[in-house]
Structures are given as structure tokens and as C-alpha cells.
């Protein structure tokens, strides 16, 4: 039983007993759907006609030229409908909810992209939708709040704790315990209790499978490195999934270094945390010596989370993937660089991955390829960036 729900020592199902039956039902429904060709066909069709896949693998030539060294390729998940990779997963889960006869979706959100993606599929399938969002995030991601409301979703601000993603997830779990029969909980990342980490990874693996094929078709070889930002880790797991069996491809997960790991004000669970249990799974966790979860910090709301997906924890331990931290300043710099050199405004989350590519490209040769998962677009972040720069006097 351990093997099914765990990734090494990570993962599992650390939840209130009330949720064990719905989790078992969800797992059963998911495996049935996976075997059903009509489910996959509907998913693929929506990916193509609604989301606009496949997303391009774009050679950022001017940016690469500026850095010197490797060619930087961007996997353009920012071009998906709703502006991020999140829609891949919410379509999958909403199709599953429909199969299970659920009429109501609810979700937690940090940056608001998962909330928007959930509100979008709820509208698409004619379902009710409620999104829990930390009060701090409601402030700093106001445009996304308006988008969700426009799509017909109810946005509930969570004022408890630090008013960020983890608090939104606490409230979503409480809601699930209360409305366990009627509602379907759409988790936005590869965290949470099994089977969510597996399911979300599967739905997001379309990113990595596409990127690998596109890279081979266009360049006739695999990339030297694949880089993605990691909060809970869904876009990273999605793109890594395509390359796990290619030992020559280095996989690099970029966590939010905030003001710097040494300051304690960051959200880098693998780089700066230790083993713990939160929101249903065992993982690296930012916590006090007494096992209380700490308030994380990052300029990017979507990475502002104290835990991380269990599969990432295992990939870290086995060395198959490396995890590094990029701080706020570096991410903001990368945000500007990509905007000015390529005419692409990236999400602050994705800017962390871009920043790591800027560091690494010069160390590789001109024949080498780096794929960066550009997980989302930056429209939602204009105010955050403006405020950040004003504060810093930039």
C-alpha cells in the first residue's frame, strides 16, 4: 500500500478521516477515466480547440545572444487560454468531476491563475465555482480576482494566518470536509494527498511530452537542461515528466528565494526546509523548530507556499533533479530582461526560471539547448512589479 500513495518516504494521505472515502472514490474514478479512450479524446480535443495547444517551443534569440552560451528555448505555456499552464490540469479535473456527477467545483489559489483556470472550466461545463484566496493575495493579484468574478465564480478571501496560499488551502480543505458529498476539490498543484500529486502531474505532463517532441523535431537533439519554477511544483513536474527517462537532460527546479535563504524570508521548501507533514502529504516544509508552519515570503504569490510536491522531494533526494533558489531581485531583473529583449512579459513565478537560465546559459556551449518552462504570462503582476520597484527605488 505504501508504494501506491507514496514517493519514497514522501507523499501519502495525511488527511482527516472524513476525506478518505472521497479520496478513494476520486482515485477509482481517475483510473477508470484513464482507461476510457473517450475521456482522453475529450481531454485532447479541449487541449487543442479550447486551450490552443500545442504551445510553441520558441527560441529566444536576442535573449540568448545577450547571455552568450546555450540557446534558450521557451516553452510558451503563457500562450494557453487563461495565460498559464494551470488550465491543463483544471480541464482534466473538471472532466473527472463531470464523470463523477459533481455539480460544484472549488479551489485554492495563490497568484490567482489556478483560480481563474478553475472558474473558466466551471463556466465551460456549467458548474458552480468557489475559489479560496488569501486576503494578501486578493490585494496583490486584484486583476485575477476580477477575472474570476467575471467568469461567475465566488471568490472567498481568507484572512487567517499569513493570508496567502497555504491559508487558502486550509480553508478549501475545511470546505471539502463540510461539503464532501456534493463538491469536487480541484487542487492546483502536485501537492496535497494522493491521488492529487499523481493526477495533476499526469494532466500537466502534456507540457513535457510536447516539449521533448518539439525539441527533437526542430533541433534533432535533447536539451542539456530543463528549467522550471517550483512553488507546489505543477509546471515543473509537468515539464520534467517528459524528460525523466533521459539521463543526459539535467532537470532544474527553481524555488522562490525571496529576500535570500539566509534571511529566512523566502518560500524555498527544498532549499531551506526540513521534512514535515502538511495538507495531506509528507514533504520538505518550512517550519519552526516546534513544527509550526512559518509564514513564507516571495514577491511572487504563486510560489509563496511552505510545502512542495512529494515527487519533487524524491527527485531531489535521488539527485535526478536539482533545486536552487532565485531571490526577488534576480526574478525582477529576469522579468525586465525577457520583456525588453523578447517582447514577452513573463509571470513573476516563471521569471524565477528565466533568471536561472540567464545564470546557466553562459556556462554552456552554443550548441547546447536550455528549455525554460514559461509557465505563465505577467499581466497580473504589473502592479506587484511597480510596487516592488518603487520600494527599492528602482
Amino acid at each position, binding site marked *: 500500500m505504501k508504494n501506491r500513495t507514496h514517493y519514497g518516504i514522501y507523499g501519502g494521505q495525511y488527511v482527516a*478521516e472524513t476525506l478518505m472515502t472521497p479520496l478513494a472514490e476520486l482515485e477509482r474514478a481517475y483510473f477508470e477515466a484513464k482507461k476510457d479512450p473517450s475521456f482522453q479524446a475529450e481531454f485532447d480535443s479541449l487541449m487543442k480547440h479550447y486551450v490552443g495547444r500545442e504551445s510553441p517551443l520558441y527560441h529566444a534569440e536576442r535573449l540568448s545572444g545577450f547571455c552568450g552560451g546555450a540557446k534558450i528555448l521557451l516553452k510558451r505555456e503563457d500562450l494557453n487560454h487563461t495565460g498559464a499552464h494551470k488550465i491543463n490540469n483544471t480541464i482534466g479535473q473538471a472532466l473527472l468531476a463531470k464523470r463523477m456527477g459533481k455539480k460544484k467545483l472549488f479551489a485554492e489559489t495563490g497568484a490567482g491563475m489556478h483560480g481563474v483556470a478553475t472558474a473558466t472550466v466551471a463556466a465551460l461545463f456549467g458548474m458552480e465555482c468557489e475559489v479560496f484566496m488569501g486576503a494578501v493575495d486578493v490585494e496583490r493579484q486584484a486583476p485575477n480576482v476580477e477575472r474570476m468574478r467575471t467568469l461567475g465564480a465566488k471568490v472567498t478571501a481568507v484572512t487567517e494566518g499569513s493570508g496567502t496560499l497555504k491559508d487558502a488551502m486550509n480553508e478549501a480543505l475545511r470546505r471539502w470536509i463540510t461539503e464532501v458529498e456534493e463538491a469536487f476539490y480541484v487542487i492546483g498543484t502536485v501537492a496535497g494527498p494522493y491521488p492529487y500529486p499523481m493526477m495533476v502531474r499526469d494532466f500537466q505532463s502534456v507540457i513535457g511530452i510536447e516539449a521533448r517532441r518539439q525539441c527533437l523535431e526542430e533541433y534533432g537533439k535533447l536539451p542539456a537542461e530543463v528549467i522550471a519554477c517550483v512553488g507546489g511544483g505543477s509546471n515543473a513536474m509537468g515539464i520534467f515528466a517528459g524528460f525523466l527517462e533521459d539521463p543526459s537532460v539535467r532537470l532544474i527546479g527553481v524555488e522562490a528565494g525571496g529576500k535570500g535563504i539566509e534571511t529566512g524570508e523566502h518560500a524555498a521548501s527544498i532549499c531551506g526546509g526540513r521534512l514535515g507533514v502538511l*495538507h495531506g502529504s509528507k514533504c520538505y516544509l518550512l517550519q519552526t523548530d516546534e*513544527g509550526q508552519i512559518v509564514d513564507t515570503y516571495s514577491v511572487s504569490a504563486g510560489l509563496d507556499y511552505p510545502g512542495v510536491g512529494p515527487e519533487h522531494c524524491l527527485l531531489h533526494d535521488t539527485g535526478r533533479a536539482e533545486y536552487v533558489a532565485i531571490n526577488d531581485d534576480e526574478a525582477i531583473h529576469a522579468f525586465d530582461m525577457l520583456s525588453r529583449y523578447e517582447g514577452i512579459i513573463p509571470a513573476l513565478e516563471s521569471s524565477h526560471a528565466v533568471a536561472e537560465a540567464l545564470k546557466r546559459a553562459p556556462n554552456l556551449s552554443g550548441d547546447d539547448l536550455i528549455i525554460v518552462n514559461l509557465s505563465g504570462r505577467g499581466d497580473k503582476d504589473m502592479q506587484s512589479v511597480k510596487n516592488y520597484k518603487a520600494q527599492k527605488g528602482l
Partner: protein
Amino acid sequence: MNRIQTLFAKAKAENRSIFTAYLTMGYPDMAFSEKAVEALIDHGVDIMEFGVPFSDPMADGPVIRDAARIALQNGANLKKILASIARLRKRYPTVPFILFSYYNVIFSYGLERFAEEAEQAGVDAVLPVDVVLEEREELLEPLRRHNMTIVPLVAPTTHLDRVAEIARGLEDSFLYVITVNGVTGARAELPHELTRRLHDIRQVSGMPVLAGFGIGKPEQAEAVCRACDGFIVGSAIVKILLDNPNDEGLKKIAEFASSF
């Protein structure tokens, strides 16, 4: 026989129900919590549940969340709670003491160190809110080596065959049956099919059954006790103390406990 088994045997012989009380420890501070525990036990509480505050109480309603937040602000932690329990154990040698906690606090403390210190303090069992059957072995093993057990939860969504699995190996404990879907907190009404459900759970588990979540009035307690061995009151007590974190509050919870 452990303290839990001894108590249930005695209650059965006397044909009476078990009254279990939950308290968030460290609200508003440790010394007050100790007095509150004394007030409860001195006024009829049979089993005491010591709630360990956690920063992210996913299964708790607003009352216990508020108490936990303030307790943490005022420096409550597991070490201090175990010290309180050790002092109370001297005064109450036979009352079963249950430690009610989210797993991360115990896990982070170190399971072996925790089991050793909890046994010394006089804890009889641990109720880990977010550790289900599939994950409990890691915790149960050190607890067993230190003569403690686990109090497992049974939810309204738990099928009866799963109840039987949950019960297996924990015959020296009791089942905490959650009466309603949802988080902790007193409810105006309990589901009407509850009597049948409690009866069935008792049948398949062969364990003593206590009902909790949503019970805040003597009438509710009386109603569930027709079908099980006792009841648990938590939020209703914590609420009194939230409103009165003083001697008046201690008096009120004593009166409240006496009313059951």
C-alpha cells in the same frame, strides 16, 4: 489493562456514559489551562483530551482555531503541554489522558523522543487528527513500545468495513466517532440517522464508541449515549473560555461540566 480499559469496564459495571472533554492547551496560557483541566475533571469529566495548538488547523472550526492561535502567540508548545500533563497526572492518577494533535507537531518533535516523554508524562493515547489507518504504523510503533495507544477517528463517510479495519489492533482504545461532516464546533442539531450509525459502528468494531463534533448540550449528549458509550465536548467548552479567559470562565466551565 490500561487506564482507558479500566475506565470503560467500570462505567459499564455502573451502567453510565463516559464524558470526555477537549481543551486547547495553552489558551490563554499554560497555567490557566491546567486550572481549567482541574475544573473539568473535578466536575465530572471522565477522559481528558489535551489539544496541541497548530498553526494550520485544517479540521477545526473557528472557536478552536482562535484558541490555538492565541495559545501559540503566548508561547504554547508540545514540551510545555507534556510538562502540564505530568503535573496533572500526579493529581489524577486514574483519568485517561489523550493527546489530541496534528501530526506535524509530533513528527517534528521526533517520534521516539515524543513517545518516551509522553509516556513519562502519563499520556495514555494519542489522537492524531490527520493520521489515518494507512499512515498510522509509523506513529503506532513507537507508541506501543512506550505503552500507549492511538484513538482513531471514524467519520460519517467511513464505510463499516473500513471501521472494522480501523479497529483492528487498537482494541485497548476507543473509537472517536465524528457525528457530522465538517470541522469541529457545536451544532444546533445532530443527524437523525446517527443512532443507527453508532449502533452499527459498535457492532463491527467491538470497541467502545464515543461520539463527538457538534455536541454542546446535555440533551444532545443524552441522545447519542442511547446508542454509544459516551460523548466528547470540545468547542463548547473552549468557547466559554474564549469569552471568559478568567476565574469567571473557570467557574462557568465547572457549571457547564456539571450539567452533563
